[in-house]
């Protein structure tokens, strides 16, 4: 891959990738580190010369694996997160998505983000996470149900206030 091509790829994918890592890990500092590591691994791999459409799921796959490695090595507490600094609260709706994400399992957060923010299909999510398409469907269904329930509860609470 040429340096200019990489610059274009970076400009197109770095922010979504950062947002994904930040929201799934709940930590912007982790996102800063992992974004760099993801691109370094990507550039030293053999897949670096492929098309953008193929590249994007691969970048998310590397990032997902790095996140999983952190959880496995205990660098981050797996299901609990430290208080975030630098994230803004959603003042308009009073629905804090960060709280919602904290109540979901990491795998559920990953899938929700990829499906609803990145707009990935089940097969693209499967490529990005290493799960089978069937597992993606099941986990996503469960995550969506849980998220909808939490959001509806918060909305009700806001209306009552």
């Amino acid at each position, binding site marked *: 891959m040429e*340096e200019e091509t990489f610059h274009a790829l970076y400009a197109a994918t770095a922010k979504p990738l950062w947002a994904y890592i930040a929201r799934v890990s709940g930590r912007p500092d982790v996102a800063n580190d992992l974004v760099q590591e993801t691109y370094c691994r990507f550039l030293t791999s053999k897949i670096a010369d492929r098309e953008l459409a193929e590249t994007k799921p691969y970048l998310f796959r590397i990032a997902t694996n790095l996140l999983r490695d952190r959880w496995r090595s205990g660098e981050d507490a797996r299901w609990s997160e430290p208080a975030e600094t630098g994230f803004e609260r959603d003042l308009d709706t009073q629905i804090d998505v*960060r709280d919602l994400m904290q109540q979901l399992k990491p795998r559920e957060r990953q899938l929700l983000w990829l499906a609803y923010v990145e707009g990935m299909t089940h097969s693209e999510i499967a490529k990005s996470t290493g799960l089978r398409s069937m597992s993606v469907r099941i986990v996503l269904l469960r995550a969506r149900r849980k998220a909808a329930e939490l959001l509806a509860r918060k909305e009700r609470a806001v209306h009552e206030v």
Partner: protein
Amino acid sequence: MKCEREQQVIHATRNGLWTSSLRAHLRDCALCTDTELIAASLKESAATLPRQIELPPAGLIWRRAQTRGRVDGLRRATRRPFLIVGVLSGLYAVVLLLWGLLQLPQSVSRLLITPPGLNGNVALAGAALSGILVIVGSCVLALETRR
């Protein structure tokens, strides 16, 4: 439970392009209502993020990857020769040690009986010692190469 139009709802939420039929569908489909609620919340959450992002420059990552690539390449290139040298030294050491072991009983007895004959056996003892050292060395080399 799955709705065929769920993906359309996600895309419409992301792009803001709602068709009238999709709006009408949203009113009747509980599943798509949930989908729209989640997608809108996450989209809004994602929209607050770019202001905080301080991404490292692409050039810095590129240079770092180039350096890492060179180091990895060097490691890959030297791995096989190191391994071959390690294996060959191991073989040499084993042969040398076997030869030394065959010679050793006679020399040891000679050493014990006639100390002046020590000079003649120094080479043999040295060979055995060097054999042991080579074995230890090749083991260390093999371990380092694997690491």
